């Protein structure tokens, strides 16, 4: 497996909020409280993160709130800029290019053609005032499709895949329940057959039976379409069910990474141990 080339590769990602000061500019001498500098208040959201995502695998990212999980996702999806670091995508067009240095247009192109994203809150991923089918079409339009009937067909198929009854496809997602909204969001993210899919706390806030539905769906999508995914969650049960490999984040750093079973059965870092043993 390790001989394979990663589809997405992050090298030394850093994301900081603030200007910094004398006392925190040098990594070797900086003295932080959790992830911020006590003298100037600069927040180190992501510190020197490197990770690889291999084709067809699901990579889990766990950590407590404020550990930098969502910052990492936002950087990967170009929702926010990085302070430093390199991102490579295994793709003919962008081979060997650091994606974070590309122009805004190119980044948007990658988002539209290579990426899918499911946000924790459907408000961010969906246009609540547009029809569900329109929401899916938005992604297809962005990827260059200009054929209404074709887009309608693809949209219907996807909505069927995520179990949204087709007679409701012309309804706005704001009329839907949270679980349905989340499923529309997944359908939208899948519409352009992205090789990489990001899932940010997709099941948080959903009740257990709906959670099971959504997780089941994600598993099925991985099997059927062979899409590589990065799944962020603070819920270890979700990670246990979905992820092949897992990284554990704390205060903006990766403190542990390895096979999911290994991490959950035999955690090494004290924080991971607390995390695993606190699981009810």
């Amino acid at each position, binding site marked *: 497996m390790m001989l394979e080339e990663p589809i997405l590769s992050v090298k030394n990602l850093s994301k900081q909020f603030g200007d910094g000061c004398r006392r925190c500019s040098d990594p070797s001498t900086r003295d932080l409280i959790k992830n911020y500098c006590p003298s100037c208040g600069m927040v180190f959201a992501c510190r020197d993160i490197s990770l690889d995502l291999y084709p067809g695998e699901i990579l889990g990212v766990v950590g407590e709130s404020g550990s930098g999980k969502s910052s990492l996702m936002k950087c990967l999806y170009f929702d926010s800029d990085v302070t430093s670091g390199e991102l490579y995508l295994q793709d003919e067009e962008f081979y060997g290019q650091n994606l974070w240095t590309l122009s*805004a*247009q190119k980044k*948007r192109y990658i988002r*539209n053609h290579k990426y899918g994203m499911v946000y924790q809150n459907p408000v961010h991923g969906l*246009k609540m005032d*547009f*029809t569900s*089918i*329109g929401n899916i*079409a*938005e992604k297809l*339009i*962005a990827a260059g499709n*200009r*054929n*209404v*009937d*074709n*887009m*309608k067909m693809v949209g219907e198929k996807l909505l069927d895949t995520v179990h949204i009854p087709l007679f409701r496809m*012309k309804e706005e997602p704001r009329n839907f329940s949270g679980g349905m909204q989340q499923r529309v969001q997944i359908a939208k993210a899948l519409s352009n057959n992205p090789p990489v899919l990001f899932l940010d706390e997709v099941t948080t806030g959903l009740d257990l039976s709906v959670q099971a539905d959504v997780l089941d769906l994600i598993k099925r999508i991985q099997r059927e379409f062979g899409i590589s995914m990065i799944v962020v969650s603070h819920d270890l049960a979700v990670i246990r069910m979905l992820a092949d490999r897992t990284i554990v984040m704390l205060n903006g750093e990766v403190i542990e990474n390895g096979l999911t079973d290994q991490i959950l059965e035999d955690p090494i870092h004290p924080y991971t141990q607390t995390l695993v043993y606190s699981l009810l």
Partner: protein
Amino acid sequence: MKKLKTHFAFLDEGSKKEIRRATLKAVAIPGYQVPFASREMPIGRGWGTGGLQLTLSLVGKEDVLKVIDQGADESVNAVSIKKLVHSTTNVELTEATEDATLIQSRHRIPEIPLTKDQILVLQVPMPEPLRTYEKKEYITKMLHAEKEYSGIWLMLFEQIMKYGRTSTDADHPVLVNERYVMAPSPIPRFDNPKMHHSEALILLGAGREKKIYAVPPYTDVASLAFDDYVFQKEDFSGEACHLCGATDVFLDELVDDHTGKTIYQCNDTSYCVDRLNKLEQEEVSTVDA
């Protein structure tokens, strides 16, 4: 010549200069909305102040001005604007499209094809085609910069989903010079093709929204349409103007008060009157002969 009481063309020279600079930039970047410092005008914002400021910044003593309001030369708004420009410049006014050098119009492009010696100024209430999709100006500017127009296509898609066709009556979005998506101002779809490779310079001014944009002569202007839902003009086939008999023009639908029947009439009044005059002349000359 009567002595003018105000500064020539109402605006001070500094303001005119600023508007002309914005205009030049707009011409240089077809379809791009150039911000400008919209002045207070003696008419309310939203009543054609953008177009009026363009007209006043362009008008010279030699110009012949025509002002139309939804096809009509005699409507209150058109007359008021004409009066204001005339009282501050003394320029000649006309209703004949071919005699005018400067035409300010609200929501119509005249039926008679414009020439390279003419400038058409259109009044614009909402210059941002992406506004219904995205409220924030900061974001729409970015979307334009990145040529990210899925929003406008999505709006058309939604219309097709809901009504089976695009339901833009006026202001159907256009792609200018294969770069910027532009609101053509609320002209009927019937007039959209007239913008394509227009011989006359077309300037669009939005006074309330403080934007100027332009379609320079001979610029590509394509109305947005999906592959399987082509762009369609309003259809008047089988109908003709009940006054002059014109068929290939934009017609208004009216109800005859006496008979209760639906009748059609040219929307462009000066075009209609012109045709009627010509018909009458022909009749007179045939009687004479």
